């Protein structure tokens, strides 16, 4: 599988007056992968996405999407043809019916996938004759997803796609993401829902207070992050267990809880050298990794 980058930014920044919403973000999103863009509310995810889509101008840094510069007006028109975007507020024409909205969108794209349109219409159970304005939040989201998926874009950017969906809706959305990735579309979706990212994503980027604090494959996270519960009869200095890879240490009485992003074997050895009376190793889920990254920095 080729792994060229479809999104690449260097020190991308955006300030609103004195507020730095995005600070020096350098992203590289590989093609044919599903990348989850995680962060708390207000971390700068939507601002970053809007810069990638040339909807707002960066205050600093540069970026390329599908090889085209994001601050070139000519390129931006070209890009809009190849990049599908489902925004946070799912902007649709309220006065149209679902059917009209689909027909209207379809008219812009010569390679519209009728098969995907039909499949999603029936999976999402969208009412064709209802006015878009009268749809529930979940239905609007599903319609917006259908319009983006059926375009068969090279790159699909979704801002909080699960917002407003019920658990079944989320499952169907994730299934569509997976199917779309199989068709060769690169997917970049923002979310603050860890479990959905943990299942489908190949790569995880975590944005916190405008900074990219983690950019790693989920395979690497699963393989290298560990939590160690150490028990010492004589508790050593925290500095003596701070080997490379230690992310956090919490000492309570004779117990020490250490989270590492790698080198767990090194720490186990160190713990034995320090005469630990018990060493317990447990895997660390994406939720804990997220919390560690967000709380620590």
């Amino acid at each position: 599988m080729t792994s060229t980058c479809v999104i690449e930014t260097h020190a991308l920044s955006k300030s609103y007056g004195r507020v730095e919403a995005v600070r020096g973000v350098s992203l590289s999103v590989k093609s044919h992968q599903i990348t989850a863009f995680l962060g708390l509310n207000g971390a700068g995810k939507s601002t970053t996405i809007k810069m990638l889509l040339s909807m707002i101008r960066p205050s600093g840094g540069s970026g390329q999407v599908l090889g085209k510069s994001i601050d070139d007006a000519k390129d931006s028109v070209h890009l809009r043809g190849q990049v599908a975007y489902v925004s946070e507020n799912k902007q649709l024409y309220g006065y149209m019916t679902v059917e009209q909205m689909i027909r209207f969108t379809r008219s812009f794209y010569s390679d519209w996938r009728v098969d995907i349109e039909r499949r999603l219409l029936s999976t999402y159970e969208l009412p064709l004759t209802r006015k878009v304005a009268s749809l529930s939040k979940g239905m609007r989201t599903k319609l917006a997803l259908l319009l983006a998926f059926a375009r068969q874009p090279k790159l699909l950017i979704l801002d909080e796609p699960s917002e407003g969906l019920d658990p079944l809706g989320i499952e169907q959305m994730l299934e569509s993401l997976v199917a779309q990735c199989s068709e060769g579309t690169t997917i970049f979706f923002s979310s603050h829902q860890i479990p959905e990212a943990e299942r489908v994503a190949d790569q995880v980027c975590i944005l916190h207070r405008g900074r990219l604090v983690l950019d790693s494959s989920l395979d690497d996270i699963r393989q290298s992050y560990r939590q160690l519960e150490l028990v010492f009869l004589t508790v050593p200095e925290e500095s003596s267990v701070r080997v490379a890879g230690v992310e956090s240490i919490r000492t309570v009485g004779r117990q020490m809880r250490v989270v590492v992003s790698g080198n767990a074997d090194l720490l186990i050895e160190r713990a034995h050298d320090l005469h630990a009376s018990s060493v317990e190793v447990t895997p660390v889920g994406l939720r804990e990794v997220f919390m560690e990254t967000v709380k620590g920095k």
Partner: protein
Amino acid sequence: MLFKLNPTTGLPLYLQLMQQIRHGVESGVLQHGDQLPGIRTLAEDLVVSPNTVAKAYSELEHEGLLEMRHGAGAFVSAKRNLAFQMSRVHQARGQARKLIGNFRDAGLDDDEIRRIFEVELLNPAEVLKRR
């Protein structure tokens, strides 16, 4: 074959899938010539990235346990190593039973024994060496 992937066990999903397919072959659920679902079908079924399934299949093909036929999918190829694998697992089980017996005799309770195994199994050195 039915698969079950757990995103929080600290084992990459593609490795879990590989293990389950291997186990399927060892236990006889999967037999020589059986066809596995296509990458896309299985990815949608498990709701995981298709890259996860592709990686598992390609590693198993490398091991010789799967044969990828272009356009037709993945087929189990277990003629040679099945008997060998089964005897290996059988042997290991016997050894584990003896070892656990020794631990119990030494006064360790099952929880402690389980923890000892877990620490060793979660030691990432082994995984890193295999890369």
